[in-house]
């Protein structure tokens, strides 16, 4: 009997428990109706973001990033420091250097003699910006440029610094800036990739560039940068093999797409869909690329503007011209890399040649975009991954010296795309070693670039492995003072 009572009690409790439970679950279910995203596993639109749709009306629609790979010396180009000439040969005061970590290349140096620029500076334009004699053409367009002299980064060596400025993280595997923009804004022209990469090489000491810098990271692979090469085939394997007609190619792609569709049905892997899209894009690129890249019809004025090297494939000038043509045809992000700026030694000789390689074409790009009415919606960026030291690396002789890596300050310029023209933002101290005013972190720079393209850097997120990732990681603020 006792047993029955116990069982009854248990049953009663279990029944009560279950019925209560159902009530409770019902309530939870009702509540969950009000939380549409609660059980969604991944979804970039959690923060109200729709891929391919800016958060607000953009000032710039496209970016051309003239990346000066190897870190150009700001002291010889744009950051005028007459004091360094006065202090020539004197040791950098330890108070200025503070506790800074140096690279393995100068950490063992016994002294750090300051060295002024071997080249003179003058002021130009209405903005009276200082530009060195190595950059005469750039000096001619200063009123269209916004110099940021107070950039700083966290890395001291090329690879991490490059990766940092391109992807927002010093370690690899994150999407590059161009990939984020492709993801955030989508293609403007469906016949060309949204993100393209062009490489060139100067005479100076070079540092590598590699495809991780234009990686899509964890984003869909359609956002990867497409490298255009200098040869006869700017995009490799784009040509149909001999004897293959367009109709045959079309039929082949259609059949392939059917096969891919079958495996998509089976496995549901989004990469399969991405692959099909890429095949289709490549098919359209087959007709688009040759016309877009044809320079034979460019008027003489253009050749004179960019300099005759723009007709020599693989030069910086040719890449600038190509960048304009791609950008004009709706490529969101054209990334150039020009190697050879790593002047640890022999700086006066090498930097003069480097500057000559890029000066005319960089300035030409600004003028050319302007005369087509495109500069206001195209953001042009010129700069490297960090700066160079005010002291010499190696021996200081009368006419020769070198400069080591310097993450604490460097100069870049931006133009167009809703950036204030004809201004200089930020200042370094008189030794050009530390930032005196308005520091701009790499993440701030990235946030500002995204802002110009209508994207809120805090909302351009992608959820991957349980974390929402951003280009600006967990920091960055838009520099409103340089926005027109």
């Amino acid at each position, binding site marked *: 009997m006792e047993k029955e009572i116990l069982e009854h009690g248990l049953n009663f409790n279990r029944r009560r428990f279950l019925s209560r439970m159902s009530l409770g679950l019902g309530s939870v279910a009702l509540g969950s109706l009000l939380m549409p995203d609660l059980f969604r596993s991944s979804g970039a639109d959690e923060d109200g973001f729709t891929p391919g749709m800016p958060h607000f009306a953009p000032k710039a629609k496209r970016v051309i990033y003239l990346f000066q790979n190897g870190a150009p010396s700001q002291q010889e180009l744009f950051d005028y420091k007459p004091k360094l000439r006065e202090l020539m040969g004197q040791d950098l005061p330890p108070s200025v250097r503070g506790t800074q970590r140096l690279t393995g290349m100068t950490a063992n140096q016994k002294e750090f003699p300051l060295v002024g620029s071997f080249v003179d500076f003058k002021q130009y334009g209405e903005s009276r910006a200082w530009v060195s004699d190595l950059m005469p053409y750039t000096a001619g367009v200063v009123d269209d440029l916004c110099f940021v002299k107070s950039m700083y980064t966290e890395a001291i060596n090329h690879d991490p610094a490059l990766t940092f400025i391109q992807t927002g993280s010093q370690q690899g595997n994150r999407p590059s800036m161009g990939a984020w923009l492709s993801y955030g804004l989508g293609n403007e022209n*469906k016949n060309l990739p949204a993100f393209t990469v062009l490489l060139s090489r100067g005479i100076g000491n070079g540092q590598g560039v590699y495809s991780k810098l234009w990686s899509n990271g964890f984003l869909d692979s359609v956002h990867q940068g497409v490298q255009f090469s200098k040869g006869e085939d700017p995009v490799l394997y784009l040509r149909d093999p001999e004897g293959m007609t367009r109709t045959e190619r079309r039929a082949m792609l259609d059949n392939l797409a059917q096969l891919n569709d079958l495996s998509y049905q089976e496995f549901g892997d989004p990469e399969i869909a991405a692959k099909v899209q890429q095949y289709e894009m490549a098919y359209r690129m087959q007709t688009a690329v040759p016309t877009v890249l044809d320079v034979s019809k460019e008027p003489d004025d253009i050749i*004179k503007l960019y300099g005759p090297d723009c007709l020599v494939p693989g030069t910086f000038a040719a890449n600038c011209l190509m960048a304009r043509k791609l950008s004009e045809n709706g490529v969101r992000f054209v990334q150039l890399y020009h190697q050879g700026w790593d002047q640890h030694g022999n700086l006066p000789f090498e930097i003069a040649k480097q500057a000559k390689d890029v000066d005319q074409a960089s300035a030409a790009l600004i003028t050319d975009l302007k005369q087509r009415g495109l500069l206001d919606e195209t953001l042009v960026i010129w700069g490297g991954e960090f700066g160079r030291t005010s002291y010499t690396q190696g021996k200081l002789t009368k006419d020769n010296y070198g400069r080591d890596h310097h993450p604490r300050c460097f100069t870049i310029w931006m133009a167009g795309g809703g950036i204030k023209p004809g201004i200089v933002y930020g200042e370094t101290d008189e030794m050009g070693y530390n930032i005196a005013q308005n520091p701009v972190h790499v993440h701030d720079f990235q946030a500002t670039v995204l802002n110009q393209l209508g994207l809120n850097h805090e909302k351009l997120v992608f959820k991957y492995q349980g974390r929402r990732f951003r280009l600006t990681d967990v920091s960055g603020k838009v520099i409103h003072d340089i926005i027109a």
Partner: protein
Amino acid sequence: MSNKIIGWAEQGLFAVSVFIGFLLLFESQLVVPVWLQPVGRMHPLLLHFPLVMLLLAVGLEAFRFGATPETSAVYKKLAATLLLAGTLLAAVAVIMGLLLSKEVGYTGEVVVWHKWAGVGVFFLATLLYWSRNKSWYSPMVARTGAVLMGLVLTGAGHYGAALTHGTDFITAPMAQYQKKVPVDVQQAVVFADVIQPIFEQKCITCHNANKLKGELALHDAASVQKGGKTGKLFVAGKPDISLLLQRIHLPMDEKKHMPPTGKAQLTPAEIRLLSLWVKGQANPGGADFNKRVLDLPASDSLRMMAVALFTPIKPAEPEFDFKAADDETVKKLNTDYRTVAFLAKESPALAVNLYNKATYSAGQLKELSAVKKQVVSLNLNKLPVKDADLTYIGQLENLQRLDLNFTDVTGKGLRELLPLKHLESLALSGTKTTYADLNGQLPNFKKLRALTLWETGITSGEIEKLRKANPGIQIIAGFDGDKSAPIRLNVPQMANNSPIFSESIRAQIIHPVKGVQIRYTTDGTEPDSINSPIFDKSVLLTKPTSINAKAYKSGWYSSPVVTFDYYKRTHKPDSATLLYPLNPVHLAAGANTFFDNRLGTFTANSPAWANNWAGFRANPMGLITEFKKPVRVSSVALRIMEEEETGIFPPEVIEIWGGTSRETLKLIATMKPEQPTQKRPHLLKAITCTFAPQTVSYLKIFARPVSKIPDWHASKGGKALLLVDEVLIN
């Protein structure tokens, strides 16, 4: 019957408890659909019912254990039912409140306090309801519960009222100061709108008309000028010795530091504003307390800082007074060659880009009539757009930006664009627009701000006239190569795959710029533009030759001179082997490097450097070449790089050994190449070793790198590097 209702109600109470708990747990994810918002807004309407019921119920609870209530069935039932009903209604109020709090504007401390007080009311009431029949529920517990309930209810009510009426609603009639309305920068006065607010925020609680600490008041200009017990607040133009700033700058632990410890301190920006203001007092008119911010000179630091206080941080978003087209229409208009995209997520405006010359037709523009109100930007650059096609563009009534660069339109077509009342930017570069067309039409485009006319054939004089006549429009003429200073041509290029030949070669030298004349010499002199022969397509060479070439074109400076070395190699060995290992970082293609016809370059960055130079340092070069058919040879040349600066030297000695078998090689020739004796520019050259002609099947080429770099060099004493890219056997 009534028991059944109570039973249902109790079940319901459990359910809502869970529901509320869940909502609170995942509150950050809560999204209230529009249709549910009215329910939330009924929160203020409903909340008075549970308030009264619960107050009554806990009142009854407090006295429940008295003699009369204990025996009154009505009392018992009323207490229980009131508490249950009150709790349920409180639950509804809480849910409504949570929904309401998701609407815009409900942020801040008061909301948080009110929310948790309300939630507290509900859960406390639920707790009371479930425990009121437990054995431990003594009169003491009942009374404590009742008092607690009363307190929490009052709290919830108070914060709720503060939400609707404002925190200072009750004390407002007594408050002395009223909140300032935001001031426009145009009207802003330096003292009243920049300086006085600092005093008001940080100083005035102790220094006002009622409370004159240190006999100082800061509530108006007169008092500020008067100063306090210790004296005047400032010396015009000298912030350093002004009492006001001295007190501010005293260290925190100093008793006279202002504001005193524990009070809100001045920010660096505020201190700087005060300092600049005191400094500015010495300027002409600076002592005027009614001076406006904008009356200060533009370069004045105080003005710049002050203006920043009033400037809105974000520029206003462009606003459009038309509705968005529906997504389906927009989607349908998107094709492979026409992109129709919303300007931004919330924007009704569309940007349209057309691409691909081959697929363009006017029909693509015609179809845009489906979104004719919404298109604000249209890009047709480089498409064969005709004047007639512009009719369709004229319908896009809100168009602001139109790009027609390098299209087939002429100035005649501009007429079609006159209906575009909002057109701000027009790009006509590379079109056949004429001055006459523009001169007549431009004034009709009232809103036009930017116009590009590069490569139109309109002369610079006419452009100037247009600029004068239309001062509101920025007219961009662009770059004119004919007017700019001449620039230097780049050097001609060799078009041959390799400059190495066995019998003869047609030297091909080209230039990328059209219309360039290449002149050349083969005798080592520099070509000139008159006497030197013109290079015409190709020149036949049968001997090793150095061609000096220069490019000329009128309107350009001639190119620098460039030298192209053509090398002859009559005999290519059937096999080649190296006797000693190469320098590990200069492996190139091993023994094959020397016969692959690919030349190395100076630039160490270039792939041609690493792939084409074979290097020797620790070991000498020992190359054995085999000819299946014996060959007659009279010279062997090594093509090398010399760059003394980086320690790359010519070989110290070259020996040529030959014979008919591997084992019977005899020394045929020895030579000691010329060495640099001081710093000199780097160079590429072939070092030739000639000897009496002989027939051989095997040749051994031996070359020893410089074993001791000479004393004049920075790396004296070390071993030099020898770099060889080709070996030429003749």
